[in-house]
């Protein structure tokens, strides 16, 4: 039988992989995809608790997370395109104009 713990462990593994991707990769688009992966890992834990407590609120929260993720994707990708237009690269190391 699949228990809540199964989902939580899987969610933790996926979240860790996404976080490792953020740290390791320098390509903005891949980092963006890792953020999406982390959001999905969190969604998985929400669904697991929703199932565990037999309550729909977790699934509603996942619904809102997905809407916010869609909005974030639109704005984030627009920012990546804008950055590429200015710097001719999507390497995050080139994004240093606010650094001092």
């Amino acid at each position, binding site marked *: 039988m699949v228990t809540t713990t199964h989902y939580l462990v899987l969610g933790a593994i996926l979240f860790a992989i996404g976080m490792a991707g953020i740290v390791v990769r320098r390509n903005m688009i891949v980092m963006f995809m890792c953020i999406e992966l982390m959001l999905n890992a969190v969604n998985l834990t929400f669904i697991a608790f929703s199932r*565990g407590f037999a309550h729909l609120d977790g699934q509603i929260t996942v*619904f809102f997370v997905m809407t916010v993720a869609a909005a974030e994707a639109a704005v984030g990708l627009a920012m990546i395109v804008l950055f590429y237009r200015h710097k001719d690269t999507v390497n995050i190391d080139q994004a240093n104009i606010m650094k001092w």
Partner: protein
Amino acid sequence: MELYVFYLFAAVAVISALWVVLFKKAIYSALSLIVCFCSIAVLFYQAGGPFIAAIQVIVYAGAIMVMVIFVIMMISPESTFPGAPGLKRLPFVVLPLSAVLATMLVWVFALMPSGAESLDGTLFKGDAGSIAKALFREYLLPFEVTSILILVAIIGAVILTRREE
């Protein structure tokens, strides 16, 4: 049976998530992320969320990833990451794998019952009707605020990418 399906798709999700990080080219990462999202959708379905599973496939694996792939193809980013360069005979590996995965997806969605026994023994299922009831009664205000958020996101994306004359 339920446990086997869980382990199968959990393994697919973890392996494809690793590929997202490890592939050198962004387009391969995006394609493995789609596989990852689809297998997570199966887990959502199995955990009693058929509606959320459908939204996962449509919005995440569909809309968002199409947008990401569109951007990747538009700017074709070069990579300095010393990762897996992509297999040489990738189509011959990926085509059978995706055929198997698609068959399993259809099998799960068509034959497995969604919903799970909750702690008190009742069958719990978040289908479209019950989600809609909760969404339009208790969560009406957040739902409306979300529409404002999406409007702002649309305007922001348009203003950001507009070319100044």
